């Protein structure tokens, strides 16, 4: 097993452990940070599109199993897209304006939550505006704050 694979496994376990132990305590009005999305973006932008999307799919599938998603496969679907999009930032962080860089990261996280909540709350009871204001935007902001904090404490580099 290569060092890179071990790194992937290590990051996946840390992210899953944080998600399972901390997310409930950090929850504000049912809005939780998604440490798995953060881990996928980190892997994707350090290792590229292919690694990012495969990592996203696997960790998403694990999250669906262990994270108790009733819609099994939904996290795998949304997190594969995160890995794919995050991969386009490979080695671009230093060349991008920080605001532009974080704007892209936040957009990726936003896309993830739009997919997640649109499919999960596909009951027709809630309008798109309410979904966005009640779930998508708060979740995006909360997860982005954690990403930005983490990125500034442990700068992400290859």
């Amino acid at each position, binding site marked *: 097993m290569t060092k890179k694979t071990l790194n992937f496994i290590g990051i996946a*376990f840390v992210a*899953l*452990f944080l*998600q*399972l132990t901390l*997310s*409930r305590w950090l929850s504000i009005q*049912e809005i*939780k940070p*998604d440490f798995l999305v953060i881990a996928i973006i980190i892997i994707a932008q350090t290792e*590229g*599109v*292919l690694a990012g*999307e*495969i990592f*996203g*799919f696997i960790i*998403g*599938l*694990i*999250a*669906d*199993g*262990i*994270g*108790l*998603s*009733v*819609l*099994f*496969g*939904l*996290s*795998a*679907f949304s997190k*594969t*897209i995160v890995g*794919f999009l995050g*991969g386009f930032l490979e080695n671009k962080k230093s060349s991008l304006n920080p605001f532009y860089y974080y704007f892209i990261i936040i957009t990726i996280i936003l896309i993830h*939550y739009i997919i*997640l*909540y649109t*499919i*999960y*709350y596909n*009951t027709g*009871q*809630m309008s798109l505006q*309410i*979904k966005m204001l*009640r779930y998508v935007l708060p*979740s995006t902001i909360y997860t982005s704050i954690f990403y930005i904090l983490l990125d500034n404490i442990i700068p992400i580099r290859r």
Partner: protein
Amino acid sequence: MFRQIYNLVYDAIDYIVFGILLLAAFVILLSGNSPQIRKLQGNITDTFAFLAYPKHLIKKTTGLIQENKKLRRENLRLKQRNSRFIEAYKENQRYEKLLGFTDSIDYEVLPCRVINFNSMAIGKSLMIDAGKVDNVTNNLPVVCTDGVVGKVVSAGETTSTVQIMKDVNYRLSIRFRDSRELGILRSRDNGVLEVREIPSTSVVHPGEEVITSGFSNIYPADLRVGKVKEIRQSKNGRYQIATIESYVDFRSLEEVFVILEYKND
């Protein structure tokens, strides 16, 4: 020629793999109820469950847990029996001739610990420390001493996933205890429990107890569900909508029971 195809595939490998993975995820999502997919989910839950309960493993080794299990089982049995007695009393009032009504309720329950609850962004579910080795299978009812919690949606070998009542995709056939009206309980997107389409002529009232109807293949009759918090007319005035308050405090849920077998009258 082959070199060109190879180069083409090599250049587009990111997109090809992306397409395959998306398709795989989509297929898994669409076939979520198939036994194979539920088995896969159960296996994943089993494999990674250790991340969710390091503290629980230590507690499980102590003998006190066995004793607690026994007591909790007895407690639940008595509470459910009590609920059944209230029901029998009301039936007796309505049908005076049925004085010889006998109570034949009998649940075979399995006490379990909740080892993880609702840790992802979506879904309202919890993980319990019982699986196929304890005879837990999909679609078994899960209750606690306060009332109905949900049902098993994915049973692994040693752990299982339980869909709770507050999940938007959950449905439960219920009966209002006093008015005898039937309905389907569902959760709104914001987690509020509701029973819609109650005829306008029904006299469902706030505070009225809600119990399981027994018409479902999953739940036995007369399990406590909650009470009516509010009753209002629908916008078109054709029916009433009842908001239900569950007896269960899902945030502090630590122990639940899986009903492995039950007998109804």
